[in-house]
C-alpha cells in the first residue's frame, strides 16, 4: 500500500495528520480516483465484479456461447490481476501500469464475445476498466483506451459473428463513444480532484510551515519583549540610582517625561507631581531671557537643537522655594530619524562649590587688600624719609632704605602675582583690549631691564620691527609678560652673557587674518633640562637649574606669562639647550594696520 507521504518523517515530528486517517471508508475510494499508484486496488475491484458477474451464468437465460472466448477472457483477467499485484510491488513506472486496465478491457471483450457477443449482459462491465483507465492522469490513457475498447467490442467478429449482425457496428462505434465520454468525464473529474488535492496538500504544508514559523517568531518576539522589558527595567534602575544628579527628560516643548530619584531629592517634589508639567517651574524667570514659556524654554535649550550640548550654571528653584546653584548640561533627545523629540537636563548641585569658590575669591581679595595696604604705608613713608630735604639722610642710611624699599616692592609683586593667578584660575581674568604697539612695549621693557642687566654684567640687545606691530590687548599685562621673560633671562644668564629681544611680524601667506606678532626672548644662560620643559609653565614650578643655582623666585612668572598669552588668544613656546641657553617665543594674534597710501603703492 502506498503512503500519502512516501518518505517517513522522524517519529518525533508527527507532521500534519495523514489524510487517510480522517477519511475512513472514503479513503480507498479517494485513492481509487486519485492515486495513480492504486492500479492494484482498481484491478481488484474490476476483477471481483468480473468474476462475481459470471455467477449469473449459473442461472437461466445467460449462456456461454463461445467457450474459447469465455476462457480467454477469464485467463486474461487473471493475468491482468496477477500483473497488477506485480506492478504494485515492483514499482514499475505508472505509465506502464496502464496496460492492466487495457488488458481488463480485452478480458471483458472476450467474456462478452463468449457470452452472446452483442447480446451479452457483460458489455456494461467495460465501464469498470475504462473508468480505471480514465482516472489515470493525462490524456494518453484515453487515446490508447479507445482503440482497445473498439477492439474488445469487435471481438465477437473474430468468433464468427457477422459485423452487420444485430447492430454490431453500431455497438462497436456507439459504446466506445459513450464509454469514451464517461472516461473523459472521469478523467477530467479526477484531474480536477487531483489538482485540488494537490492544492489542499500544498496548503496544508504551507500551513504547517507557517505554523512553525509563527511559533518561532512568537518565541523570538517573546524573547525580544523580555529583553526590552529587562533593559527598560535596568535603565530605570540606573537612572533612579543616580541620586546625586537630577535627571529630567522633557518633550520638545519642555513638558517633563522622566524625573529621576536625584531630581526628586534635589527639587523636593515627587515625580508624579511634576510629570507632564513644564520644566520651567524649576527655573528662575529672571535667568531666562524672553517672555512667555516658549521663548524662555528656547533660551534654556539655545543651540542644543542644532546639536551643540549646552553646559552652564543655573539656579534651580526647589518645590519648597529654596534655591540652589546647579551645573546643568542640556542635550537633545533624538528619534530614529535624527529629529529632536525632546531634551535631557542633567544637573549637579554646585551650590557648595560655588560658595567655596566665591569665598576663596573673597579671601584672596581680602588678603591682597590687607597686604597691599600696609605695603602702601611702608613704601609711602619710606619715600617721605628718603625725600626729606630738611633732614637729609647719610649715604649709608639711604642704602639701607633702598634695601627696605626693594624688599617691600618684591613683596608687593608677589602679592600681585598671587592675586593675578587666583583671578586666572577662577576665570575672572579678562583682557581690556586696546590697540597696543608692541615696538613701544619692547622699548619700554628694555629700559626697565637695563639697570638690572648692567648690574649683572649681561648685554641686552633689542631688535624691533620696522613697521608697527599692533595687537589688540592690555598694555599693562603685555608689558608684564615681556618683563617676566626678560627678568627670567637675566636671572639665568651668567655675567658676560647676552639676552636678545626680538619682535617680528609673521604674516600669513594669504592675509586671511592669521597674522601673528612674535616676541622672542633668548639668552645664553644655564638652560633648562629637556624633561622639565613641559612642567615649566605650571604654578610654583621651579626648574632644577634655578634651585641648584639658588636663583630667587616662587615659580609664578611663567604661569602668569602664559595666562596673559592665552587671554590674548596667543601662546608661548620654549626651546632650550642645557648649558647653552633658552629661548621663549610669545606669539600673539595681531591686527594689520590699515595700509597708508604709500604702503599700498609699495605693494603692487
Amino acid at each position, binding site marked *: 500500500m502506498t503512503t500519502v507521504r512516501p518518505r517517513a518523517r522522524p517519529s518525533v515530528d508527527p507532521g500534519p495528520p495523514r489524510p487517510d486517517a480522517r477519511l475512513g471508508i472514503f479513503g480507498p475510494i479517494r485513492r481509487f480516483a486519485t492515486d495513480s499508484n492504486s492500479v492494484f486496488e482498481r484491478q481488484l475491484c474490476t476483477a471481483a465484479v468480473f468474476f462475481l458477474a459470471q455467477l449469473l451464468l449459473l442461472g437461466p437465460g445467460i449462456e456461454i456461447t463461445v467457450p474459447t472466448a469465455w476462457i480467454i477472457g477469464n485467463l486474461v483477467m487473471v493475468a491482468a490481476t496477477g500483473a497488477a499485484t506485480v506492478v504494485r510491488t515492483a514499482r514499475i513506472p505508472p505509465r506502464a501500469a496502464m496496460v492492466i486496465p487495457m488488458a481488463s478491457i480485452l478480458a471483458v471483450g472476450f467474456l462478452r464475445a463468449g457470452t452472446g457477443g452483442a447480446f451479452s449482459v457483460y458489455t456494461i462491465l467495460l465501464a469498470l476498466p475504462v473508468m480505471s483507465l480514465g482516472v489515470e492522469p493525462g490524456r494518453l490513457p484515453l487515446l490508447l483506451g479507445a482503440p482497445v475498447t473498439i477492439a474488445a467490442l469487435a471481438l465477437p467478429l473474430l468468433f464468427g459473428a457477422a459485423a452487420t449482425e444485430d447492430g454490431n457496428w453500431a455497438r462497436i462505434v456507439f459504446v466506445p463513444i459513450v464509454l469514451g465520454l464517461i472516461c473523459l468525464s472521469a478523467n477530467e473529474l479526477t484531474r480536477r480532484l487531483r489538482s485540488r488535492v494537490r492544492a489542499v496538500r500544498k496548503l496544508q504544508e504551507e500551513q504547517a510551515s507557517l505554523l512553525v514559523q509563527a511559533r518561532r517568531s512568537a518565541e523570538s518576539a517573546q524573547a525580544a519583549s523580555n529583553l526590552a522589558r529587562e533593559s527598560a527595567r535596568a535603565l530605570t534602575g540606573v537612572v533612579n540610582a543616580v541620586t546625586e544628579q537630577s535627571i529630567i527628560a522633557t518633550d520638545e516643548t519642555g513638558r517633563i517625561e522622566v524625573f529621576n530619584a536625584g531630581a526628586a531629592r534635589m527639587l523636593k517634589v515627587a515625580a508624579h507631581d511634576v510629570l507632564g508639567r513644564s520644566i520651567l517651574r524649576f527655573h528662575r524667570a529672571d535667568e531666562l531671557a524672553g517672555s512667555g514659556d516658549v521663548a524662555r524654554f528656547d533660551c534654556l535649550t539655545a543651540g542644543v537643537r542644532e546639536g551643540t550640548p549646552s553646559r552652564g550654571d543655573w539656579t534651580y528653584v526647589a518645590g519648597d522655594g529654596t534655591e540652589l546653584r546647579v551645573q546643568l548640561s542640556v542635550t537633545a533627545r533624538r528619534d530614529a530619524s535624527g529629529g529632536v523629540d525632546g531634551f535631557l537636563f542633567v544637573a549637579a548641585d554646585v551650590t557648595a562649590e560655588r560658595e567655596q569658590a566665591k569665598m576663596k575669591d573673597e579671601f584672596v581679595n581680602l588678603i591682597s*587688600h590687607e597686604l597691599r595696604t600696609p605695603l602702601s604705608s611702608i613704601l609711602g613713608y619710606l619715600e617721605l624719609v628718603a625725600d626729606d630735604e630738611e633732614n637729609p639722610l647719610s649715604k649709608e642710611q639711604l642704602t639701607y632704605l633702598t634695601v627696605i624699599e626693594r624688599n617691600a616692592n618684591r613683596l608687593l609683586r608677589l602679592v600681585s602675582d598671587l592675586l593675578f593667578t587666583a583671578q586666572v584660575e577662577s576665570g575672572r581674568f579678562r583682557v581690556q583690549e586696546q590697540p597696543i604697539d608692541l615696538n613701544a612695549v619692547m622699548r619700554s621693557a628694555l629700559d626697565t631691564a637695563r639697570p638690572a642687566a648692567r648690574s649683572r654684567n649681561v648685554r641686552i640687545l633689542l631688535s624691533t620691527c620696522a613697521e608697527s606691530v599692533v595687537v589688540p590687548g592690555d598694555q599693562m599685562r603685555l608689558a608684564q609678560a615681556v618683563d617676566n621673560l626678560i627678568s627670567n633671562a637675566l636671572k639665568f644668564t651668567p655675567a658676560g652673557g647676552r639676552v636678545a629681544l626680538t619682535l617680528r611680524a609673521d604674516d600669513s601667506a594669504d592675509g586671511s587674518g592669521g597674522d601673528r606678532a612674535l616676541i622672542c626672548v633668548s639668552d645664553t644662560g644655564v638652560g633648562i633640562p629637556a624633561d622639565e620643559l613641559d612642567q615649566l609653565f605650571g604654578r610654583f614650578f621651579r626648574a632644577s637649574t634655578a634651585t641648584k643655582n639658588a636663583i630667587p623666585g616662587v615659580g609664578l612668572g611663567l604661569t602668569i606669562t602664559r595666562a596673559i598669552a592665552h587671554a590674548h588668544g596667543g601662546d608661548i613656546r620654549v626651546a632650550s639647550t642645557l648649558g647653552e641657553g633658552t629661548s621663549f617665543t610669545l606669539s600673539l594674534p595681531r591686527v594689520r594696520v590699515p595700509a597708508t597710501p604709500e604702503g599700498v603703492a609699495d605693494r603692487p
Partner: protein
Amino acid sequence: MTADDGPPEPTPPTTVVIADDDADIRALVAIAARRAGATVEACVGDGVQAWQAIEQTRPALAVLDVAMPGLTGLEICRLIRRNPGLTGTRILLLSASVHAVAVNDGMLAGADLYVEKPFGVRSLATRIGDLLRPGAGGP
C-alpha cells in the same frame, strides 16, 4: 564751583576731604595733599563721616578709599554726583584692588581719577595738584 553761589564766605578752592579706613594711609594722603598746596578740611576713617564732611564743607576734592565701612567710596562718589550743590567737587578714588573692572566701576560712578595703592607720595601730590588746578577738565 558755580558762579551764583550765594554764601558770603566762598569755599577756598583748594579744600580736600580725605577718607580711608587706614590711619597711616590717611596721613600719607594728607601729606601729599598739603604738598600740592591744598587745605585738608577733614581726614576721616569711614564712609558716613566722609559724606557728612563733604556735604558740610563742599570741598574742591574728595580723596576716597573704595573699600570703607559705612559707605564705600563708590557710593559716596554717586552721592556727590547726584548732589547739585557738589558739582564742583572733584573725586579721586584710592584702591588696593587692581581689577580692571574695579577701575571701570569707579569711572562709571563719576570719579575723576583712580589711583591704585601703593602710590608714591610725590606722584600723588602731583595728581592732586593737577586736579585742583583751575581749568583742569571738569566732571
